[in-house]
């Protein structure tokens, strides 16, 4: 069994990133889309932590990850509030139905 190294973390992070993108593109429900965004943010977080750990770069990575977690929470709060608002006006949270603003 090989030692779990940087590359494994990076692999996970890339997979997460791609899953996030995939989720954002394919999901109709706004909440699911938001979750996709969370996945992306977290994939970056994994990167930060992994790099900090394996690269001996000090604490900047961890610090960044902490900030990101907080920001993600804030973002989720705002986003969910907006989704709620959307639900009130459109009676749906399907992002592909919300297209009154277009050319």
């Amino acid at each position, binding site marked *: 069994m090989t030692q779990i190294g940087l590359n494994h973390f990076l692999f996970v992070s890339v997979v997460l990133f791609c899953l996030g*993108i995939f989720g*954002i*593109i394919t999901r109709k429900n706004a909440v699911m*889309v938001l979750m996709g965004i969370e996945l992306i943010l977290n994939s970056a977080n994994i990167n930060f932590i992994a790099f900090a750990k394996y690269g001996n770069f000090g604490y900047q990575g961890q610090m960044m990850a902490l900030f990101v977690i907080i920001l993600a929470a804030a973002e989720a709060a705002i986003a969910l509030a907006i989704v709620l608002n959307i639900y009130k006006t459109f009676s749906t949270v399907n*992002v*592909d139905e*919300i*297209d*009154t*603003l*277009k*050319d």
Partner: protein
Amino acid sequence: MTENLLIQFAIIILFLPLLGFVVTLFLGSKVKKIFLFENFVLILAFILSVIMVFAKLNYYPQENIVSEFHWISLNNVPLFGTLNIDLGILVDNISVLMIFVVTLISMLVHIFSIAYMHGDKRYNRYFAYLGIFTFSMTGIVFTHDILMMYIFWELVGLSSYLLIGFWFEKKSASDAGKKAFIVNRIGDIGMFSGILILFSTYHTFTFDKIFTQISLGVLPFNSEFWLTVTGILIFCGAIGKSAQFPLHVWLPDAMEGPTPVSALIHAATMVAAGVYLVVRVFPILTGGALEFIAIIGALSAFIPATIALTQNDIKKVLAYSTVSQLGYMVMALGVGAYKFAFFHLVTHAFFKAALFLGSGSVIHAMHHEQDIRNMGGLRKKLPLTYATFLISTIAISGVPLTSGFLSKDGILAGTFAFGSLTGQWFFAFVGFFVALLTAFYMFRLVILTFHGEPRNKEKFDHAKESPFVMVMPLVVLAALSIFIWYTPNPFNPEQGAFLSKWIKAPTIVVPQNARYSFMKNDVIKPAEQVQTAKPKTEAEITFSESYTEAMHHAHIPAMLLSLTLAGLGILLAFSFYQWKKLDPDKLANSIKPLYKLSYNKWYFDEIYQATFVAFTLGLSNVLYWIDTYIIDGIVNGSATVTKQFSKFSGTFDNIVVDGLVNLMATISGFIGLMFRRLQTGKVQTYIVVVVFSLVIILFLFKSF
């Protein structure tokens, strides 16, 4: 009388008619009798010109008096220094004689018109136009340079346009005016091109200076060929103005103008300006150019003569006869019979003016009936008109004791001499044949109009002799058609002062080897020969001795032959129309195609209409179509394409629908549309595009 005074006279004569024009034009609607002022001005001009002719020919028979001023001068021009454009007045024998003719006829026509035009609603305007014509014509006569010639050349074109279209309510009249102007312009383009060549070579317009330079051997583009071309191009102006073949088509149409105008402009003076032009530039014409001129002259003498045989409009016959006679003059110049060409110009002016005014008198009497088939027997009603008309007809037919005989005979002798010297008898043949035709159709005209029984009784009954102001000019002009004014010997014009003293052949300046062979100066003459040879005054020699010799020899045979032919022509006319021994209709039927060709004026108008006019109009329409749809379209695109795109979007903006007709804008719009397709309003589409573009960007830049 000093030279200076002569110049002042010339200037006064030049500007008097202009004054008349301005005053008459501007006061025309206010002062009813203002036309009298115009008449007065012309009479004054005539008196002055009589004095001038007298003074010039008596006191300065040899001098060419010139006065010029810098009209425009460009100073310090790089490479040239000062470039002056001069206008000036040249008073020589030719110009004073010509001015005499012009003012005389113009005055007579003015007087004639007082009665003829009486009652016209634009009576004063008519006289104003006559005034500007006289001014322009005087300008042509007095000019000492080719630019001023061109300026007045165009101005006579303008006055001719105004006068032909004087009764512009008639479409035919306005058409004729337009046609005259445009056809003349065709010739003018040639003339102007010639001027361009002259100016770019000599940097001057003045005849004298150009002549001097050519005699020094300076040639356009350093080649004799281009000198020939220049001559021909300048002559193009004459082709237009003197209605020479192939631009003769405007003159018959110009008969739509009032008849006195036809007499003044389209018979006596303006159309002779072409001949006058050639006379002026004669020294620079090379052999080649002269030959070209002679050919054009011959064709112009012949074709209209054949047409005149069958025309039924009294003025049309005269018009074709005019073209034919002008052809004579031009041909005469072409074969070197310079003096006789000018002589014929003068004599023709008088008798043709008389003929036209006579026809005007007839038309006036017949209440604007012009068809000779409706006339006949008028000599009883219009005795004076008949008498003068007959005299003039005799003159034009070349019967002895008339001026026409003298001048025409000289021309025929010239062609004869030319034939004997060069072996080309074509011109002589044409000359004599046309003489026959002339005699025939002119007498046909006289007989049909004045002899026989009246064919239109009603009009005939109302006809009465014209008033004094109309008859007087006829008498004067007919009187001038008698030989006595020109020479004491009715069979030898050279004995008169006119040809022996007043008119002299000019010195040719063209390089020797570009001349007719017989015009070459006998440069190397053994000294003793000069002394032993019979001393001749310079005046007696035309161009070269051999030519003068040939002319002398040709004189008698030419005279006899022409007399015979004229007599034959008159005889034929009488047998056809007076004695009815021969039936013209029968003859016409037997040579139907020829008759039709003649009757339809050789179809010139139709051919031109079908080719040049149609081509130009067609081209203009095609180009305009191209302009609208292609040129504009390249930038603008077509409306249909735009509309197709407009379907894409309901909110297509007004301007675009109206026609942002632009292909450019259409493409722009299309690009815009493509961009818009991406803006679906669906956020996920956006993300997809972003991700895709990211991939593309990465792919693009990965090599770096």
